[in-house]
């Protein structure tokens, strides 16, 4: 396959797919960590949803 004249196009297509998929994955992982941190900071300050009972 490597001696195919269009080998570069095949590699570029799979590389693009890999980059897009890993990009999506990393975005979701970092977003999750960011939201968990924000939530933890707010809960540490004593703020609770009404359903969980507000401590203030």
């Amino acid at each position: 396959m490597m001696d195919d004249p269009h080998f570069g196009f095949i590699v570029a297509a799979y590389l693009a797919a890999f980059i897009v998929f890993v990009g999506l994955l990393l975005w979701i992982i970092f977003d999750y960590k960011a939201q968990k941190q924000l939530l933890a900071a707010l809960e540490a300050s004593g703020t609770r949803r009404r359903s969980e009972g507000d401590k203030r």
Partner: protein
Amino acid sequence: MNLAFANPGRFLAFIRYAIPWLAACGALIAALGFYAAFAYAPADYQQGETVRIMYIHVPSAWLSTACYGIMALSSIGTLVWRHPLADVSAKAIAPIGAAFTFLCLLTGSLWGKPMWGTWWVWDARLTSVLVLFLIYCGILALWNAYEDPARAGRAAAVMTLVGAINLPIVKFSVDWWNTLHQPASVFRMGGPTIDPSMLWPLLLVAIGITLLMVALHFAAMRNEILRRRVRTLGMLAATHEMKGIVE
């Protein structure tokens, strides 16, 4: 069962277990599919090895419309039933669908150059997929244009349902117009025209990537539920601060 998962807390408990299983099964099936695509599937008699691009291009194309279908169903849930998770689902799937549509366009272009001699033509299939990508971008912009997620959800739901008219155009563009893009060769009346030695690896990759897409969707929905909790708590904290200043 659907109503049980309408509660975000129960849904979060469910996806905590579902995401790792979906991701593991999806990765395994996709890996098997790619292995079969490169080790067992033959080169095409006309396209040669370039046909290997099909194993990433076609699943991306299917998922670009499938994600839009999920977004349209979620939008109905938002507008008709005000389902608590419907607009969370719609918002979470939008960037994933946009990513698969972008990938479909990019890999299609990389396949088109060596086979057609051009990166792009304004034929009906390519143009309708580009329009699909632009609709995704518009919906993403709309989600970010409103401060209140409920208002953004309703506006995005209306735009999503209006844009859904493009889905049959994408699917049937190759039948309705004379296009450079080939007609359907898998999901068509009369069965697939593609040889089983290429069809099975393609289906394996498609199933694997679909499971991975569902795992990503659930994970993005979890992020959105957390974002809304952060917003609610932030507003509560601000209210308490205001009360403290007044008192």
